[in-house]
């Protein structure tokens, strides 16, 4: 059978550093092929070469048996390769339809644009995918999840034969993900090839039928997913044995760590009540936009609740700004480390110390020895891999960046840890280390409240789970009495 796409011995170096040493890949028509690998495995470089953004140093790319050379994304598109990028690039002040047909608008008379035809076909595209989005609404008024769906629709509108999807579900909810999977299956029956890149193994096993694993910039292996199990795939990705995917050693104590009663914030959350105990990992599950992050924003003083009481360590508290929350021993690991967690242009050390500056400068001037010590302690404790702690944090892998964010907060010895998607965009190996850190913290008597949209993670780590739906709580369940199906059911 002819291969839609075949790649051999792809190489790419940046300033003497090999990002990709031996990229190999084969895509058959009518298949969904998972491209797996940890952060830094070379997947992104691989994709960027195929998109025509990077120029390869060596290797061959064959499209239906014919040698090709892409010098721009337009070349790749012309050859029938479309990509759904991980980083969204919407034009906010244009409509959904204008975004989808950007640069190839249907023409009307006198060189104008046929807006009616454009809106009609965009709406049809969205409807066919069962995405609940209006083609005439402005991009800036959409949620992140909806923007990602538009990005997906845009890639599919190219009618490409080969479609790359780089973490397409990282920002969308379970229901939208299922719509996407339906769309993928339809494309598959049409004989197209889909390359699916994701850190979420459950998705890979759900949608893909073959896999290729990269590690440290080189091809490790490939095969049919039917012939490999989850631990086997993890072993290939990580390159070593991982005993358990989740680490859970904590046991809840009877003492309450944080209690929230009837917390409300207009148009965001309504009547949220829960209490997390010391030693407990309390999970919050829900779709994007269900009001999960908004709970944390209210608790941490980033947003003002209109009603409700918060009790920390048995005492009722008022939190009107992050400094108040921090003084009470709360720590917030935000959802998007690049947007709200890290100062990317600054060093690892400065980022670790960012939330503890007053403590580290008793006499206004910084105690630099103490800063260096704190940074070293956190790097040791969390095994943050950085050549030096004075290098910019932007140079670290996603997992290590996330550990820097954790280090920043652990430096304050918090009592209550609020975690918002703590393992987003983190590879399997680093994920497990982060689970260990969370579990150790709870086992030592800390209180953890963790938001996650990964069902396995919520079920694997939490003692109890609150399900959020449309800004309200849909119930609190212990991990024994619930399962993936009922969580999804409750959240939609």
């Amino acid at each position: 059978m002819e291969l839609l796409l075949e790649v051999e011995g792809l190489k790419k170096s940046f300033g003497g550093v090999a990002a990709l040493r031996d990229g190999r890949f084969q895509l058959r028509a009518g298949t969904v092929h998972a491209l797996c690998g940890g952060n830094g495995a070379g997947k992104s470089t691989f994709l960027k070469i195929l998109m025509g953004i990077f120029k390869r140093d060596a290797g061959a790319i064959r499209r239906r048996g014919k040698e090709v050379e892409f010098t721009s994304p337009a070349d790749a598109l012309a050859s029938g390769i479309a990509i759904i990028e991980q980083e969204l690039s919407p034009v906010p002040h244009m409509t959904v339809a204008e975004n989808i047909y950007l640069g190839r608008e249907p023409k009307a008379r006198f060189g104008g644009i046929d807006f009616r035809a454009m809106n009609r076909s965009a709406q049809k595209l969205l409807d066919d995918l069962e995405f609940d989005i209006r083609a005439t609404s402005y991009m800036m008024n959409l949620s992140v999840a909806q923007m990602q769906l538009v990005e997906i629709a845009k890639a599919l509108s190219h009618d490409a034969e080969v479609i790359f999807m780089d973490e397409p579900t990282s920002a969308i909810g379970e229901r939208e993900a299922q719509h996407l999977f339906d769309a993928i299956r339809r494309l598959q029956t049409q004989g197209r090839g889909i390359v699916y890149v994701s850190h979420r193994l459950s998705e890979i096993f759900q949608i893909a039928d073959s896999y290729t694993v990269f590690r440290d910039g080189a091809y490790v292996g490939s095969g049919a997913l039917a012939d490999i199990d989850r631990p086997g795939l993890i072993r290939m990705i990580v390159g070593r044995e991982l005993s358990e995917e989740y680490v859970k050693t904590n046991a809840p104590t009877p003492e309450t760590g944080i209690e929230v009663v009837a917390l409300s914030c207009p148009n965001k959350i309504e009547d949220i009540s829960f209490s997390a105990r010391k030693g407990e990992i309390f999970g919050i599950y829900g779709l994007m936009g269900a009001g999960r992050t908004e709970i944390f924003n209210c608790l941490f003083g980033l947003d003002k609740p209109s009603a409700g009481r918060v009790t920390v360590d048995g005492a009722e508290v008022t939190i009107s700004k992050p400094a108040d929350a921090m003084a009470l021993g709360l720590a917030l690991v935000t959802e998007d480390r690049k947007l709200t967690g890290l100062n990317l242009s600054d060093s690892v050390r400065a980022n670790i110390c960012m939330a503890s500056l007053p403590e580290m400068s008793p006499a206004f001037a910084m105690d630099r020895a103490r800063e260096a010590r704190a940074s070293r302690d956190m790097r040791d404790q969390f095994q943050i891999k950085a050549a030096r702690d004075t290098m910019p944090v932007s140079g670290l892998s996603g997992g290590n960046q996330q550990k820097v964010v954790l280090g920043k907060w652990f430096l304050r010895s918090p009592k209550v840890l609020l975690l918002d998607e703590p393992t987003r965009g983190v590879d399997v190996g680093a994920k497990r280390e982060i689970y260990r850190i969370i579990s150790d913290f709870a086992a030592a008597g800390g209180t953890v409240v963790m938001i996650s949209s990964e069902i396995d993670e919520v079920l694997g780590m939490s003692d109890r789970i609150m399900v959020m739906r449309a800004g309200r709580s849909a119930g609190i369940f212990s991990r024994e009495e619930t399962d993936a199906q009922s969580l999804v059911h409750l959240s939609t």
Partner: protein
Amino acid sequence: MPNHSSTFQPEPGQGVRSMAEEPVMSVGDDKKAKGWLGSEQRRLLVQEYGIFLAFLILVAVLSVSNEFFLTAGNISNVLLQTSINGVLAIGMTFVILTRGIDLSVGSVVALAGIVSASFVTSSATAGISGAPYPVALGLGIGLLVGIACGAVSGLIVSRFSVPAFVTTLGMLSAARGLTLIYGGGRPVPALTPAFRWIGTGDVFGIPAPVIILAIVFAVSWWILNRTRFGRYIYAVGGNPHAARTSGINITRIQFVVYVISGGLAGFAGMLLSARTGSALPQAGIAYELDAIAAVVIGGTSLSGGVGRVTGTLIGALIIGVMNNGLDLMGIQSYYQQVLKGALIVGAVMLDQKRNYGA
């Protein structure tokens, strides 16, 4: 925090940068990490000392081509000419590090200059009643005027989220207008010799303005590199959202940097009038452009969070030395402006190439 979303878009260059730094993600393999470390050190070296190197080359070329350039008199002259722009540029560095800009410094120079002059003039008609007052009072008033202008801008930028460009553009116009109103459009002449000392005096042959610049630089360097407040400035400029989540009061930091810039502009205004002996209502026009140029040549990013006050000082010196060198070579000042423009853009082009290219 909706009120900041409009002013604080993540810099568009970031996407490009993370792409260029992609291979870095593969730390873990020792060999790779080491290779990258080498290039990282090289990058830092160029970043930290590249501008200094450019400065040295400029000085070397001028010393060879003109025997008068390296004389004590000329060096002192260059430093003197740099001192006012240097003080303004250092204040500007604080503001630009937080992703802001202060376009009003030229007008604040004039306003502070004329208000303080009216307290220390021996002219019977131009001063306020009872003048001349002691130097300390004049200096204090001038500084206060500068701080007040900065405080107004800072308040509007930080509290009401009006873009810094617009706010300080307004202050540029308003402060110039106040200057004309205050002095009736006329200069304030005949400043007392005691006041004139800060612009014309010297200590062991070193001009007083140069000493003042050195002190301003040293204190600013200490604040930015060694204190909590300095870390706050870099954090707020680098990522205001992360800074806020980390418990930093970003409103206060934004406010204070404009106060610093305004205060230093007020001080520079007094230096200028003290040097020339009278305060002119049209003093300081377009000074903000030279100050911004010095900051930018010195490698500070206009998108905030990245930059050094040492670079700013060298940037101001480069502008001063270039003007002086071209003067010595007898090149018309019209050409000097063209060359300065090329220098500003060229410096940033090199910076871009260094950060994102190759």
